[in-house]
């Protein structure tokens, strides 16, 4: 056999690095044999032995590091999920995720983006709706941490808007703002975990939370239903006048909400579309 070309070698080694067991199992796999015959790999025709290591042992240095590195990335983003699942179940979930969703991005900060959706499809997990939303909350925290910087709107810049113009404006929300509604009290659960209270699986109770970054810290703000609905509409880019209709009989609170949310940097500017009234 001729020496492997670079592409075949890299595809072969990629399989070796990613194999969940070890290098020997990898080079014996059907996929790896497509690129390099097992016999050549096993007998030092591809990777040379060293004075102290056989070729498979040398490949195992790379195989061993891959899984642990990526699981560590997930571990750092989802401490609450680890608590909820337990270390053993978390490890197997993370291992499966690494196998099903190989990293496609140069930056590891994106690696766990699909974990909440991955959990949602895992029928073997107890209370997976809760686990999915807890993972979503922790992922939103990570996204808020890395979101682009933004400057909060100066409310004084809106002083001269007429009531009609207020109704038409579309507010620009902070790029860090995320909203999560869950049938479970995931934010309370996460806070209990951060407070070292060893929380148990919670009973169902709808919760709503805004996640955003202010002063380089990520904050989680619990919201009731009317406030959540108004903020959701604003985040979706709807006109202020349309968004506040969701407040219903809580409309009298809109001034306070706007003041608080502006102070927290949730709005960065606004667009005033032309008046289309005939």
């Amino acid at each position, binding site marked *: 056999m001729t*020496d*492997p*070309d*670079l*592409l075949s*070698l*890299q*595809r072969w*080694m*990629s399989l070796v*690095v*990613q194999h969940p067991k070890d290098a020997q199992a990898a080079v014996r796999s059907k996929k790896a044999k497509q690129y390099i015959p097992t016999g050549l790999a096993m007998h*030092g*025709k*591809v*990777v*040379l032995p*060293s*004075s*102290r*290591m056989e*070729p498979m*042992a*040398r*490949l195992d*240095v*790379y195989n061993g*590091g*891959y899984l642990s*590195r*990526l699981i560590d990335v997930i571990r750092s983003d989802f401490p609450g999920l680890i608590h909820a699942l337990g270390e053993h179940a978390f490890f197997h979930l993370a291992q499966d995720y690494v196998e099903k969703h*190989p*990293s*496609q*991005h*140069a*930056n*590891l*900060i*994106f690696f766990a983006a699909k974990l909440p959706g991955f959990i949602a499809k895992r029928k073997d997990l107890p209370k997976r709706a809760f686990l999915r939303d807890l993972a979503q909350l922790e992922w939103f925290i990570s996204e808020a*941490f*890395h*979101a*682009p*910087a933004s400057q909060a709107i100066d409310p004084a810049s809106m002083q001269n808007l007429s009531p009609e113009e207020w109704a038409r404006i579309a507010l620009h929300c902070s*790029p860090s703002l995320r909203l999560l509604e869950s049938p479970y009290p995931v934010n309370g659960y996460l806070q209990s975990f951060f407070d070292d209270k060893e929380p148990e699986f919670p009973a169902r109770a709808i919760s709503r939370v805004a996640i955003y*970054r202010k002063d*380089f810290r990520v904050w989680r703000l619990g919201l009731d239903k009317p406030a959540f609905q108004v903020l959701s509409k604003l985040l979706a880019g709807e006109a202020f006048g349309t968004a506040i209709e969701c407040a219903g009989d809580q409309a009298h609170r809109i001034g306070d909400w706007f003041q608080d949310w502006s102070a927290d940097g949730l709005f960065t500017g606004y667009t005033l579309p032309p008046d289309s009234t005939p």
Partner: protein
Amino acid sequence: MNLSDLRQDDLGLGIGLRTVHFGHILENWPDIDWFEILSENFMHTGGRPMYILDQVAERYPIVMHGVSMNIGSKDPLDLEYMQELKVLRNRCKARFVSDHICWTGVDGTNLHDLLPIPYTEEALKVMAEKVKQVQDILEAPLTLENPSTYLEFAHSEMSEPEFLRQLANETGCGFLMDVNNVFVCASNHGFDAKEYLRQVPWDQVLQFHLAGHSTFETHKLDTHDGPVCDEVWELYRLAHELSGGRSTLMEWDADIPDFDAVHGEALKAREYRQSMSSTSSSLEND
């Protein structure tokens, strides 16, 4: 900016800008010559890390060091990554942009490891084309680091220093000589580290890295989790003599101690740099 300009630009002794030291740096603005950033830690992020970097970059020279350029892969260059890298380079006015002589993934998958390449004519051609493309995008020389490796390919056609020499001839790129990596590879592969250093194309070398490693029964691993061992310091002395002196970075990326401990380790390099300077002066006086 060409390579000879950069070669003259000995920044002195630097350390890596790491999250655990942010508070100390902002409070004390320590007496350090320069900082190196891990490029990917400041890409696709707009929070506190960028705020810190902006302030640090106002006061210290910055050098960028990346791990995801995938320069040795058969995959095409990731142009989105390159654009982000260039934006970051311009923002922090980095003096050098470096990555590694390695590949990190193929067919779009990123394995997030510095994987070894075979030192073949084919790999040389692949890498040279991509280095030229990177340099066109950056409008500056790319600097590439010799990696720590844990295996050698049977079909390699040349030594690592020869590969470096030919890559430099093809592209004019610079090199970052990681002295600890030379030591680790020499131990793992059974070659003479001093002989390796004597074969390095020193005109192309812009920077040194120093770091700690871990020793196992069968091999050494480049772990950046401790002080520099005596053997690596001695190799640094030789490298410094052979090169005439280059910007030097102390890497400490795991089990990171407080800033003063890392800084103290970096300052040890000063003894070697000064002994070299005094040797040069006495030779000139003679």
